[in-house]
């Protein structure tokens, strides 16, 4: 049997397949490489991204779960906490040594207790409630704060785009 990282990923895959949380589908891109996953996230209700289906990509390090995976939106997303290139900026994806924006406390960082499911749920709640204190996308941050209706319009456009409309 291969390393413990693979074992844990298999375990998480099994668990996610058996009872996946609402609005989330996740699994490895191919059965040959369990360290690259693809996840579909549905925009939660009552927010600008409602109804959208966003494709994301998770890349796991070989020492998972000791180090966090990297997460990236493949679909285009305009959001204060998503970098323009799609990388997701949430605290549980950072190790205590690495704090790109310098505001997070150690308690909200990555630890092996976290799981893929928790990451995805955090991203869903991030979509619903952006954190404009730590902007990864400054334009989105500014628009979210100053011109909410325009932000909603842009988000709705992207939702339609994500659905292929």
């Amino acid at each position, binding site marked *: *049997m*291969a*390393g*413990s*990282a*693979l*074992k*844990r990923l*298999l*375990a*998480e895959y099994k668990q996610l397949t058996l009872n996946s949380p609402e609005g989330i589908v996740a699994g490895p891109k191919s*059965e*040959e*490489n*369990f*360290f690259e996953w693809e996840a579909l996230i549905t925009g939660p209700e009552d927010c600008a991204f409602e109804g959208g289906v966003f494709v994301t990509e998770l890349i796991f390090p*070989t*020492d998972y*779960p*000791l*180090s966090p995976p990297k997460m990236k939106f493949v679909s285009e997303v305009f959001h204060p906490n998503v970098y323009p290139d799609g990388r997701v900026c949430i605290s549980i994806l950072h*190790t*205590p*040594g*690495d*704090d*790109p924006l*310098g505001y*997070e406390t*150690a*308690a909200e960082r990555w*630890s*092996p*207790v976290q799981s893929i499911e928790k990451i995805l749920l955090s991203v869903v709640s991030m979509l619903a409630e952006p954190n404009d204190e730590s902007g990864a996308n400054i334009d989105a941050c500014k628009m979210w704060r100053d011109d909410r209706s325009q932000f909603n319009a842009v988000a709705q456009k992207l939702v339609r785009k994500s659905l292929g409309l």
Partner: protein
Amino acid sequence: MKPMVLVTLATSALTALVVGNAYSQKRQFYTTLVYLLNSNRTLGVLYVQAAVMLWVTTTVVKNLFFGTLRAAEVEHLVEKSWYMVLETFILLAGFHEDMQVGFVTTITFLFVIKAFHWLIEERINYMERSPLIAWTFHLRAVSILFLLAAIDLLYIRYSWASLRTKGASVQIVFGLEYTIMLLVGLNTFLHYVLHSIDLRSEDPWENKTIYMRYVDIGVGFMKLCLYMSYMLFMMWILFIPLHIARRIFITAKHFQKSVNDVLSSHQAIRNLNTLYPDATEEELRAANTVCIICREDMLQRCKRLPCKHIFHTSCLRSWFQRQQNCPTCRMDVLSHSASLRRNRRLQQQQHGPPQDNTAQGGANNGGEGRSEGTMSPPAHPHTTPPPPPFPPGFPAFTPFSMPPFMMQPPFGGGMGGGGSLAGLTDDQLRSLEGLERANVEARIAVLRNIQRLLDSAVTQMVQYSTVMTNMGNAVLVCHSVSSELQQDQDFLGTPILLPLLFLTPDLLPLPLHSSHLPLPLPLLIQPLRQPLRLLRGPLLKGQREYSFTAGQLDPQKSREREEGEEEEEEEREEGERRGLFTVGETNSSSASIAGGEGGSGGPGEGSPAAVDELRQRRLQRFHSLPAVSQVAAATEDSMSSASKTDGHGGTNGSSTQSPEKEQ
């Protein structure tokens, strides 16, 4: 694929046409050959044909041994190729007189071979990620590894022969390249062996990572030695080999990282073994029986942290190599165990030796008792004068003056060489038992002292390497690491440890300081740091990966700093990001940090104007980089100018540190 086939067919047809035409004109082999080689046009066609042939061969070999490449592999290949191209150009600047057809061919061939080395390395690393490894994978991997090793060896032999017969030429460079590739191949092969062993067994192989690190350390060390000797050799006979500067830096960094990893993992294991008890059966049954780290059932070999959370020993060990806190509740286990230790020591001081005896009585019961026993270190020689429970003849017990050879059976004389006990009365036996017990206790105490010495040596090593990692932030980080040692100040002051402490004056909790030492540490490591920093400037500009950034600094530690220093720190970070990190800045800011922690911080004098000036100078130099000789001259130049700032920073540092010492 299609266009390549067309191109191949077209060039082959063209070559056939040209050769056929020449032969039809000349009708003889040698005249045809002379004709073909003298005409520029035919020669051009032949070169194109050779290039296409090489491409076809490479593709065939690639398909044979690697199949289709994954996207990540292609990406890495392209990235590494760019570095290779850059280094080749730097190399060409030195060997432009050798710039001939043969040279180009050799470089192209080298590139192809190198690309295969990169690919197989990538593939072997991929083994760890895939649950499905077919037998063809093993066949392919082993055969390509041996093929590459054979090519490397052949070329090394050739260039060695050339070095001996023709003297120093460009062949040295190729000889080095192939030797390095041989080492990389060896590394890959050893990784492959380890992965294969791991794949065979059902359970994850815990020690694999440790073995992998040892392999990395061994091969890294060999690479580093090779690069260094090559560099010295080249500097001696030809010029400064700038083309390998980047790789030397990366190799050194990688080597340092593996050494760090091994040290931290040793420390983690030691902590696990000594500080935390094994979880009992009841605890395992009572707890949720899934280890939160690996998501598997906990049946055996589990540890319980002071916060009552239970994990697999192996999982916890690998986690502690990264962070010293509980994965579930993030309780800082190190500080907790330190306070636990302090409490115990206080208790011992109050109750005296009986407490010690009970702790050691538990030692005989094994299990939890044993780890508890080791958890409480013996009382300090200075704080509690040890009671004299020893028989006469056994030397007075002072932990640090007693060398290990005192460990011989201490009651040898009294017992007459272990004679029979039959003739003794019950009372006599009981008193003998008491003696025996005291002796055993004394031995345990001595062993513990030795262990503490070793531990502190390990801590020193860790600190030392932390200094190497965080250079500028050295004082800051080490102060926190040595906080544990700080509790044992009197212990540190003992003469046996002095030589160790001389190595790392910056790390001291203050009883000794730089003014006591012949040379302060920053000055000692300055010659090492200087070339690296210079290289980092021009070559690695914009390479975030290889420059020291704020990310490496633990934010908690940085928060401990005083507010006022943050501005200065930011400025320094900016300098780092631009790859224009200067020593003067580092020293002044780290000194002021140290001063700040000591409570008497004078503001560092790394004035922005001076920094800017230096920066400007560096930039100018970097822009005037057309030829290697100029670069070399500029390097020497800036080295001397930087050493001036060094001196300035050094005096500055010591002046800010001196009040701290007086405290």
